[in-house]
């Protein structure tokens, strides 16, 4: 489609808003609860209410039989339930006055009666359906019921409440005390008494209990709110109702819903309040209301408004603000609807809202998918997750000062959590203040593992199968958090300085003279101290734990302090090696550009290997055993240079291969000249001569060892070997020129010219842009290395997905963040990549990757317009960049659809494993780097001696030991002054040959970084009749589909490389078909 040139920003915005609205409308229609199911649910509710009303309570109050009146709140919610947000309803059983005595209101006798009633109801309910008791505090259980067999998810809460006006309203105010210490000391079990200090006196008996008061006030307040909701969200405000549904879905997708997050009632209350304040209007579209709602949340609306009151009860707001982070009062002013919302939940909600607005303003196509359709993985929200050791927890609990606060919230239900929140996190917050993304408050991201399990279980309609009693702290770090090794404190001698010393410990703090002349307290972390998995942040957390809570943090003894960055060792040495290569390349560049008397001066030197894009997981190694001494004049070697570099046939006969040594590629650009030949072949020769000349000059001026080949110059510098290529534009132009029949000169891209263009034009630009990401994102380099290593460990070869495509996909995570937050640590980057690939819809959407130079709107619009129509012609992945508007330059050669789907499956499995692994003690990070053999139809095992990249293997297992034992030749030639064997990897060569031979029949998988097996997956030949015919005509497969012939060829081609070949038998096990090769 031709896009008009005057397509303005406003039109684009309008079209984008339409695009989102269109999806919203479709989504709401799709997810609406069918009327039939709605009727079933309401019928069930009615019957269930009658059943509850018929329960006779006899053993609760002595010699008294009574029943409760049943009141239902939340039928409106039933109407708007869908498969994303299960319908929620609340049934209140009002205790009759005959079951109560005047003296036992809100005391422990009443609480005991209430508990017994809940237990009795549970017994009855279990006869009908599934029910589970949940403790909202130690003394306040409720019953949660999940109706079965209705074809939709629903959740019914059964609460037993006091009759209205039985207790005076003032009893429910947050400053009042409705808890007594002696209830705990006499009733609670031994395990809970450790929370209560032994020296408590009688004065401590009265406990101010805002949380418990709220629970008691909740019953009647809930009914009032429900009436209000009915009034505001009635059928004639359909847009508001739709917005409400979308908000609920959005929260659920982020797992910030439910009792411990932002409940549906809170969402409804906030929308009502915004409506009253005229910040939204019921005539607005649901999308507009939603945006305003996010805008309210993103601008700290929940905290900064100073509390929200649904009606005229503003006076009480201040009273509630003292006890709760978020205040949303019901019309009576006695109950805070958001009393269960914690600070960290508010943080996450605000963060989510900011992200939602960002993603919409950046007009990305997958915004709707990302916000409403895909789940945000729970642990992936954090850069690192730390598990608090049990010993630390006990220590914290014992000297925790706010034990009364704990009693109100429930010692049993959230005692440990409250301890961590109130003691540990403030301490860690102070220590990590400079490294957190926002401020000290950002470190409230405390996760209760049970919450995650609960959310997951609820979604699939099951109750949680296990409870993990772990306390995990999630940290969202600032971008440069891992780089700073200096904690600057206050000026020496001040009161703040004393606090600083107390926080870090006397031994740790030093006084430092700053450049401005002031002397400040400071903590300096030595580089060797921070060389632990997770870096300096982990070191700080360990230090604070040990100093203040006297906890040992040995792994396996007291739990794991550090959980989610155990991948670090995989890439630990890579960054050091890459830095060495780059520094050698920089020096070489200076030397080349500084050369005088060259035929044509070199204007620029650009790196084209992945190591220069800073994402190569296994950069070239320094050559250990070669002496690059300067050859003296007149010295005679006796043999020509080329012979020296040849592989010794004797070595090959003994089946021992030299260790892999790789060159790094550099592309040289020369001064412009009009004297280049007009013939491609002549230019090729001219390039050789120019390279030879350059080599001689480098040898003469700097004593560098060089060797010329037809298309490159090998140069040894600081122990690394570089391959220098010349990029000549005229060569490219000439290669593309062709004449048609009429003699007109045409410019047509050929296979060879496309390859040359990629090498001399595309790759240098791409690598420099990827390298540029380091400046903006500190975690880019390590994260990208880890991702590339993970993909290769899954045996996906470079032919299947090239390094460049992976680099671009990784850059997408940074440049166009799909889901929050922008990752910082390498582990969170890896998890973000898994999540991105698993969730992105490559069929319908191209990736738009903006580097520093933004892409013109018109270009994006043109590609998108054509995308759907041309989908079949385009490659599976389309990545539009400022220097490639077609989006196909790098992805044309791969991955194919089968490979992309394979990668998507792997990423999905990895995300699930990671989410599950964070809760588990048996979490083995390196397990991610072990491919599963179940995927393959046949497996070729390689001889250890043939695997030359054994130093790049993730697991230093017996395989490597075996290889080392047999290794007799280590890259050291008998000619000390020559180049060693370079870029010789027989396994890779074998894999390439195998791919060529089996092109129609199979996909070949191999880990290029020292993998010891090759996996083969047979293609579905029934779907490709031509390929089947070709294979049959070559007699590679028989008519009955027997593929033994192909494996026979694989065995022959892999002579001295393969150890054995196994094929999957009918029973699913691998069976040796060619053994002892």
């Amino acid at each position, binding site marked *: 489609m031709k896009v008009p040139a005057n397509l303005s920003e406003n039109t684009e915005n309008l079209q984008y808003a339409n695009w989102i609205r269109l999806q919203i409308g479709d989504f709401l229609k799709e997810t609406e609860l069918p009327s039939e199911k709605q009727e079933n649910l309401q019928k069930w509710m009615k019957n269930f209410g009658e059943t509850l009303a018929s329960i006779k309570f006899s053993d609760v109050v002595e010699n008294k039989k009574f029943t409760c009146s049943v009141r239902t709140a939340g039928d409106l919610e039933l109407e708007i339930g869908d498969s994303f947000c299960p319908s929620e309803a609340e049934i209140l059983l009002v205790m009759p006055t005959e079951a109560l005595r005047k003296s036992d209101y809100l005391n422990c006798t009443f609480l005991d009666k209430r508990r017994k009633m809940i237990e009795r109801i549970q017994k009855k309910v279990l006869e009908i359906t599934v029910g589970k008791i949940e403790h909202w505090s130690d003394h306040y259980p409720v019953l949660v019921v999940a109706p079965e067999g209705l074809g939709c998810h629903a959740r019914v809460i059964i609460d037993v409440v006091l009759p209205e006006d039985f207790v005076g309203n003032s009893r429910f105010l947050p400053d009042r005390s409705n808890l007594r210490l002696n209830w705990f000391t006499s009733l609670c079990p031994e395990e809970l008494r450790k929370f209560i200090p032994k020296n408590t006196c009688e004065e401590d008996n009265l406990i101010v209990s805002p949380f418990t008061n709220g629970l008691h006030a909740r019953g009647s307040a809930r009914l009032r709110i429900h009436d209000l909701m009915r009034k505001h969200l009635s059928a004639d405000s359909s847009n508001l109702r739709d917005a409400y549904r979308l908000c609920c879905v959005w929260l659920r997708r982020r797992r910030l819903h439910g009792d411990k997050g932002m409940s549906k009632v809170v969402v409804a209350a906030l929308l009502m309040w915004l409506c009253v304040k005229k910040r939204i209007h019921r005539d607005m579209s649901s999308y507009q209301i939603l945006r305003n709602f996010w805008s309210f949340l993103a601008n700290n609306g929940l905290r900064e408004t100073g509390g929200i009151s649904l009606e005229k009860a503003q006076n009480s707001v201040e009273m509630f603000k003292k006890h709760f982070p978020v205040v949303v009062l019901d019309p009576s002013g006695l109950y805070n609807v958001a009393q269960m919302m914690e600070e960290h939940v508010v943080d996450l909600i605000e963060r989510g809202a900011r992200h939602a607005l960002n993603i919409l303003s950046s007009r990305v196509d997958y915004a709707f998918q990302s916000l409403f359709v895909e789940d945000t993985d729970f642990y992936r929200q954090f850069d690192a997750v730390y598990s608090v050791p049990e010993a630390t927890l006990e220590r914290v609990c014992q000297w925790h000062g706010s034990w009364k606060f704990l009693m109100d919230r429930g010692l049993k239900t959230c005692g440990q959590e409250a301890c961590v929140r109130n003691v540990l996190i403030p301490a860690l917050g102070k220590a990590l203040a400079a490294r957190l993304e926002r401020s000290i408050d950002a470190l409230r991201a405390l996760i209760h593992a049970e919450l995650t399990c609960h959310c997951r279980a609820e979604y699939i309609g099951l109750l949680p199968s296990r409870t993990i009693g772990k306390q995990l702290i999630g940290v969202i770090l600032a971008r440069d958090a891992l780089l700073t090794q200096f904690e600057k404190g206050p000026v020496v001698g001040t009161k703040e300085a004393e606090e600083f010393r107390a926080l870090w410990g006397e031994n740790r703090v030093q006084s430092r003279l700053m450049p401005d002349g002031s002397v400040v307290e400071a903590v300096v972390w030595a580089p060797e101290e921070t060389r632990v998995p997770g870096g300096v942040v982990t070191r700080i957390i360990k230090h604070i734990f040990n100093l203040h809570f006297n906890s040992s943090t040995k792994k396996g003894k007291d739990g794991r302090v550090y959980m989610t960055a155990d991948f670090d060792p995989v890439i630990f040495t890579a960054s050091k090696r890459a830095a060495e290569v780059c520094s050698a390349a920089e020096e070489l560049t200076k030397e080349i550009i500084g050369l005088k008397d060259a035929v044509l001066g070199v204007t620029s030197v650009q790196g084209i290997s992945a190591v220069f894009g800073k994402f190569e997981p296994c950069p070239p190694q320094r050559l250990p055993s070669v002496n690059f001494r300067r050859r003296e004049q007149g010295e005679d070697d006796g043999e020509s240079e080329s012979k020296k570099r*040849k592989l010794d046939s004797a070595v090959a006969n003994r089946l021992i291969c030299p260790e892999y040594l790789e060159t790094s590629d550099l592309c040289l650009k020369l001064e412009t000249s009009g004297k280049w030949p007009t013939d491609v072949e002549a230019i090729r020769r001219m390039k050789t001569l120019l390279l030879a000349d350059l080599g001689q000059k480098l040898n003469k001026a700097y004593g560098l060892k060089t060797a010329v080949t037809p298309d490159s110059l090998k140069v040894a510098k600081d122990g690394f070997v570089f391959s220098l290529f010349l990029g000549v534009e005229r060569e490219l132009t000439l290669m593309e020129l062709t004449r048609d029949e009429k003699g007109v000169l045409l410019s047509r891209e050929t296979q060879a010219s496309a390859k040359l263009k990629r090498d001399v034009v595309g790759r240098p630009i791409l690598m420099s842009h990827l390298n540029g990401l380091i400046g903006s994102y500190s975690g880019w380099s390590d994260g990208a290395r880890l991702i590339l290593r993970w993909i290769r460990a899954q045996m996906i070869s470079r032919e299947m997905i090239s390094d460049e495509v992976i680099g671009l996909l990784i850059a997408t995570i940074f440049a166009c963040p799909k889901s929050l937050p922008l990752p910082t640590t390498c582990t969170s980057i890896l998890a973000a990549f898994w999540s991105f690939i698993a969730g992105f819809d490559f*069929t319908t959407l191209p990736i738009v990757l903006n580097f520093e130079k933004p892409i013109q709107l018109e270009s994006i619009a043109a590609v998108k317009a054509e995308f759907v129509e041309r989908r079949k012609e385009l490659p599976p992945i389309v990545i539009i960049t400022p220097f490639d508007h077609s989006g196909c330059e790098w992805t044309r050669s791969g991955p194919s659809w089968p490979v992309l789907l394979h990668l998507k499956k792997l990423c999905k499995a990895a995300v699930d494993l990671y989410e599950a692994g964070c809760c588990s003690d048996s979490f083995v990070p390196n397990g991610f780097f072990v491919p599963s053999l179940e995927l393959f139809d046949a497996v070729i095992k390689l001889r250890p001696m043939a695997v030359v990249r054994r130093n790049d293997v993730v697991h230093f297992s017996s395989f490597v030991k075996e290889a080392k034992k047999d290794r007799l030749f280590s890259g050291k030639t008998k000619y000390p002054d020559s180049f060693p064997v370079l870029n010789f990897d027989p396994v890779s060569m074998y894999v390439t040959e195998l791919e060529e031979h089996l092109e129609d029949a199979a996909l070949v998988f191999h880990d290029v970084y020292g993998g010891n097996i090759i996996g083969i997956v047979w293609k579905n030949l029934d779907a490709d009749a031509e390929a089947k015919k070709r294979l049959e005509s070559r007699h590679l497969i028989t008519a009955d589909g027997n593929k033994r012939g192909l494996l026979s060829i694989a065995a022959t081609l892999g002579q001295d490389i393969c150890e054995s070949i196994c094929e999957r038998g009918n029973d699913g096990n691998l069976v040796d078909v060619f053994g002892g090769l």
Partner: protein
Amino acid sequence: MVSVMGKALNKLKRKIRSKGEKLCEKSDNVIREGLDDIPFEADGFRVVPWKFNEDAEHFCLLGIKEHKVRKSCLEKPLGRTLLVTEVPPSFTIDVIKHIFSNFGDILEVIFQAKPTVHAATMSISTNYPSFDDQSLRGYKVAYVVFSEAEAVSKALSHVFNTPFLVSSVDNFANGLQSFVMKYNAELVDEESLLLEAKQFLKGYDEEENLRKEQEKSMGEPDEDGWVTVGSRGSKRGGFSRSEALTMKIGEAEKKKRAKKELVNFYTFQIRESKMKNIEEIQKRFEQDKRRIEMMKQSRRFRPY
């Protein structure tokens, strides 16, 4: 005309078929050990069984037939050229020569990715393989050019009783040994490489000088005083016809026209441009709807 052509073609087909049948009749009398289930001919190609070595359990097949096209080229002369298909990636020119050398003297073997009328660009030096040779991957075809026409018919009528053993070819290796050989072959002697490059450029310079002189001589009057006027070289009045130049001229024309044209000046123009914009937006809207439909189909989530 069509019927005449059709008759001729049918005649030709009958002739070929009868020739093939004769060959098959002839070859049916021969015992082929272990090759019972393999036909002599498949899809118009005679088959040649081969295997890597004596121990290999499995044998594979090559297909051969005479190279016959309407337009011949110098590199692949008609009558003397044999087309070999299904050539495995690891086969070298030596292997092909070894298989067919018994039938006559082989002048040349040309590898190509697919059968074509014209020959691919040939490598003129081992140090500088042609771009076509570099991009050759996977199974390929080979053209075997014999010195005599008889050799082709000999090869086609020959019955391969046993699979040809590739291991019997000198300098052919499999597995690690072959990779070592390949690596060593890529290493070149610097002196000879530079010498070759210099010689080539010398030859190129001589050719260029000659061409320039010829061009120069064209501009001078001949014995009779006539000057030949050519179209080569923009400096001499003419210019080479190239696509780029045509596009450049087209762009310049377009710019010129755009400068003269009054856009959104008349009422009808404003109305038309608005209409056009609305049409574009509608079109985008329809496309968006189609995309949403595709997205719905591709996502796994199905409510109810």
